């Protein structure tokens, strides 16, 4: 007899069971929701405005929850995958502004580790697997998913959330560069919406800091329904992500360190460094003076740069060559820089005393925070240390200038139909034979790289996140302006692709002079176009056949970070892999040893844990999400309502909808006799101590989980 129970719905399991309608209504009186409600009332007719506001309240009631944090409690950690964003309701939080290696992330233990089974746990599961296939507790009576990790939308580890508190907060604040976010400030939204890792660690500054956490599904809907919120989020993306991205990209490692800048620095020609070296403009601002204790300091603005999105920029003052200025101590100078930064609202303020050689001070403030961060650098005297520090500052200034001139473009859609289509219908990003008008950096998504030969366009390679295109051509033209070359390849978007385009002139000015001659790409030899193209098409790519590359791109497998590749020349079809998977998953394997085959390699129907998981886009409850620490795409079973949106969205057909059953083996059905389904798929054995059981179980090393975003990974395995 089937068990009849109501069908699960989106908000059956609100993010916070205790969030009432009244609490949600109270939140509407606080920023930023207050501003959004005001916008709706001003810009919409009364009836739609009220409906929109009601909608906002419903989102807050169902997709948000209230958190109270202790002083020093880590709210989110650099490197964790984001499934939600936060709003500061009262108190403040601190963002650690240093890079992942230097920032707190590396030293603080992971906060929400999924509970992996230990050795004996993994042994015990063999006997404790459920007796009934796809048995579940009755809907609604099941666990609503406790603990913060579950609330984050990840697979539930149970109610075992243990907050991590920073022990010596004053020391942390002393040692690290941090920025403060106060009431009404939002953080974590970029990682949540992009389903990417967090870029900074954030902790609560005082006891009782109140935060509102919103899961990304709610955030996405609010962003869609409230245009001012969209603009706000998009602008912050430029502010927050771009610079980090540029800093992490190898080409920009030496920006601000060219032979010419070094010469100017040696000669004390500060204006040349600032104006010609790192691209600032001459300032038209009036000189100003500042009182520091008993002394008054004259400050002459000599150079400045605009920020982007109308936000703060950079300004450089020369400290007048007065007695007072010369006598200022380091502490007073730091105070001067801090105050200037706050008064001018600039992102960066640089002060250097005229005629004092290498005495520089500066302050870099983060955008959108209530007060500028601490003095970023200060150095007096000469030597290698001084040069390094000044160059770090110059690099920051140059990067900001590059960032300002960088264009954002996105192509294609996160859309199954587009991915299923072929080369002709993939949107063109840049075209072979066109002038290289900039260095293209792929931020997200997969890009097909193709080449025309006799009018036939063939895929030759592909680019994943972090890869760039066009540097070879730009570098060639920079060195040989008399023999310019055009772009050698066409790039097309496979699915949704985010790119940055840094104009050629900017590259030629800031980047190329900073790359050592030996590291520059080789110049193009004058060869027949057809010969080059033919070599490009027919040569193998590190051992991977070009037709294989074409296959991976055509089928969009390049999206997979852990695709299951099976070498059919070695696979004995023993199904040990399938049995191992079943053993780890209640005797029901989470993949099928079947799938598209090319050149003796099968890409099996197992979730590939995509770079851009289409399955996550429409999930109404957030049941399918990235696991926080490792980024696998996993399904939180209790909150899955079986709507099959993920299964329909997954281009690769890697999600199975299963009928659930009671402990007695009866199928659950609703009042209309429709079965209750749950989505199931490979979770990359996220709870297994040894990692993917399928890979470990293969006796012939015929099966490997491979990140196909980079063809070298496949090449390494094929060549084994």
């Amino acid at each position, binding site marked *: 007899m089937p068990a009849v129970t109501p069908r699960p719905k989106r908000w059956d399991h609100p993010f916070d069971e205790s969030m009432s309608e009244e609490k949600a209504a109270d939140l509407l009186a606080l920023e930023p929701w207050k501003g959004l409600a005001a916008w709706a009332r001003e810009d919409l007719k009364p009836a739609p405005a009220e409906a929109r506001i009601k909608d906002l309240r419903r989102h807050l009631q169902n997709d948000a929850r209230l958190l109270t944090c202790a002083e020093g409690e880590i709210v989110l950690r650099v490197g964790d995958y984001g499934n939600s964003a936060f709003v500061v309701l009262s108190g403040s939080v601190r963002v650690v502004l240093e890079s992942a290696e230097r920032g707190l992330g590396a030293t603080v233990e992971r906060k929400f580790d999924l509970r992996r089974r230990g050795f004996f746990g993994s042994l015990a599961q*063999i006997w404790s697997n459920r007796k009934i296939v796809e048995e579940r507790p009755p809907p609604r009576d099941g666990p609503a998913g406790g603990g913060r990790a579950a609330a984050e939308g990840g697979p539930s580890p149970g109610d075992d959330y243990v907050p991590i508190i920073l022990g010596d907060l004053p020391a942390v604040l002393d040692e690290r560069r941090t920025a403060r976010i106060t009431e009404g400030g939002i953080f974590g939204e970029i990682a949540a919406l992009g389903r990417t890792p967090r870029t900074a660690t954030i902790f609560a500054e005082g006891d009782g800091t109140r935060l509102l956490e919103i899961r990304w599904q709610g955030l996405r809907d609010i962003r869609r329904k409230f245009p001012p919120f969209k603009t706000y989020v998009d602008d912050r993306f430029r502010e927050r992500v771009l610079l980090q991205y540029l800093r992490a990209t190898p080409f920009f490692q030496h920006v601000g360190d060219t032979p010419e800048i070094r010469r100017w620095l040696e000669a004390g020609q500060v204006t040349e460094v600032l104006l010609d070296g790192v691209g600032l403009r001459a300032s038209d601002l009036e000189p100003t003076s500042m009182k520091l204790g008993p002394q008054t300091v004259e400050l002459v603005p000599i150079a400045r740069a605009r920020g982007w999105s109308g936000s703060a920029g950079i300004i450089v003052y020369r400290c007048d060559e007065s007695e007072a200025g010369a006598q200022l101590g380091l502490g007073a100078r730091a105070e001067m820089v801090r105050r200037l930064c706050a008064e001018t609202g600039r992102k960066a303020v640089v002060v250097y005393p005229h005629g004092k050689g290498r005495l520089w001070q500066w302050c870099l403030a983060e955008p959108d925070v209530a007060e500028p961060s601490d003095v970023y650098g200060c150095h007096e005297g000469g030597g290698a240390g001084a040069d390094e520090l000044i160059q770090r500052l110059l690099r920051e200034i140059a990067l900001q200038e590059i960032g300002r001139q960088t264009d954002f473009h996105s192509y294609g859609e996160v859309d199954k139909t587009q991915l299923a289509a072929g080369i002709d219908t993939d949107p063109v990003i840049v075209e072979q034979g066109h002038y290289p008008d900039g260095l293209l950096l792929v931020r997200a998504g997969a890009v097909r790289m193709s080449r025309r030969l006799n009018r036939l366009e063939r895929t030759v390679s592909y680019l994943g996140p972090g890869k760039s295109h066009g540097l070879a051509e730009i570098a060639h033209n920079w060195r040989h302006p008399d023999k310019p070359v055009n772009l050698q390849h066409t790039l097309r978007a496979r699915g949704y692709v985010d790119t940055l385009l840094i104009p050629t002139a900017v590259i030629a000015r800031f980047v190329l002079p900073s790359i050592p001659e030996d590291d520059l790409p080789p110049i193009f030899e004058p060869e027949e176009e057809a010969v080059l193209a033919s070599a490009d098409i027919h040569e193998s790519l590190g051992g991977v056949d070009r037709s294989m590359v074409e296959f991976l791109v055509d089928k969009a497998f390049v999206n997979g970070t852990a695709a299951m590749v099976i070498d*059919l020349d070695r696979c004995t079809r023993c199904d*040990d892999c399938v049995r*191992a998977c079943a053993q780890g998953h209640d005797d029901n394997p989470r993949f099928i040893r079947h799938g598209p085959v090319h050149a*003796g390699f099968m890409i099996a129907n197992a979730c590939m844990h995509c770079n851009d998981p289409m399955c996550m886009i429409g999930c109404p409850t957030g049941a399918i999400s990235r696991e926080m620490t490792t980024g696998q795409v996993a399904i939180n079973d209790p909150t899955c309502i079986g709507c099959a949106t993920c299964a329909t969205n997954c281009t690769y057909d890697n999600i199975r909808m299963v009928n659930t059953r009671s402990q007695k083996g009866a199928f659950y059905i609703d009042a209309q006799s429709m079965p209750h389904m749950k989505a199931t798929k490979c979770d990359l054995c996220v709870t297994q101590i*040894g990692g993917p*059981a399928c890979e470990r179980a*293969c*006796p012939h090393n015929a099966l490997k989980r491979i990140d196909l975003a980079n063809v070298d990974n496949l090449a390494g395995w094929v060549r*084994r």
Partner: protein
Amino acid sequence: MTRVFARRLRNGSILVAAIAGLLLWYGRQDDPLDQPQRVTGWLLVALVAFLALYSVRKKLAVVPLGSSATWLQWHVYIGLFGIVLFVTHNGWHAPTGTLESVLAVLFVLVTASGLGGLHVSRRIPPRLARRGEEVIYERVPAFIHRLAGRAQELALESVTKTRSRAIADFHAAELAGFLARPTDRLEHILGWGTAHRRREHAMAEFRTCLGPEETPVFDALTDLVRRKEDLDFHRANQGLLKYWFFVHVPLTHALLLFTAAHVVVVHAFGGGR
């Protein structure tokens, strides 16, 4: 040099060195029937137990006990060493006594099935990869059933389309039986191709007698026959890959039992020698 080749070279060298060491040690013993037999005997027991542990590892697939591929490498090389050890243990003579003879036969059978399994697991997969579509073994009968149904439909269609019973009769006489169930297992395993050639010949002959209306229908039928052959090929070879295991493992269990009996007997009647 690929990594696989380097690994084989390394493991092969270690194996050769181990065998050489064993033989050298054995040659230096004064009484080849006393001390060396006890040492090699216990070594052999340990070795057989270790080899049998691999199937335990396979059963505990999710437990982190090292990858199955690493275990298999050890299994193969230690198994090869075991052959020499076994012969040495017997003093390079044929065994005497019933228990010892049964044990020796079992050892030979386990070793032979193991080497046979190793051989087929290296030889068959590339052949499977190059023949027809990849298909899951258990699904082959269902696919064959579908093909047979489609062939039946084509034969019936041919009667109405061409107003001739020729194709339908040929189908009933020559093809229906072949298409109805998996066939030619041995042919496909041993690669004879006799039945295939006979069928091809009969079909080619028959095709020459057909009119222009009938030829396309018959070609479609021929295509189904080829696909059926591919499915048979996969069924036969995948079956071999699966079922050799069912020879190797029970024999191993028997070997373990007889080894235990042998140890008891040697201790009871041989004074623990």
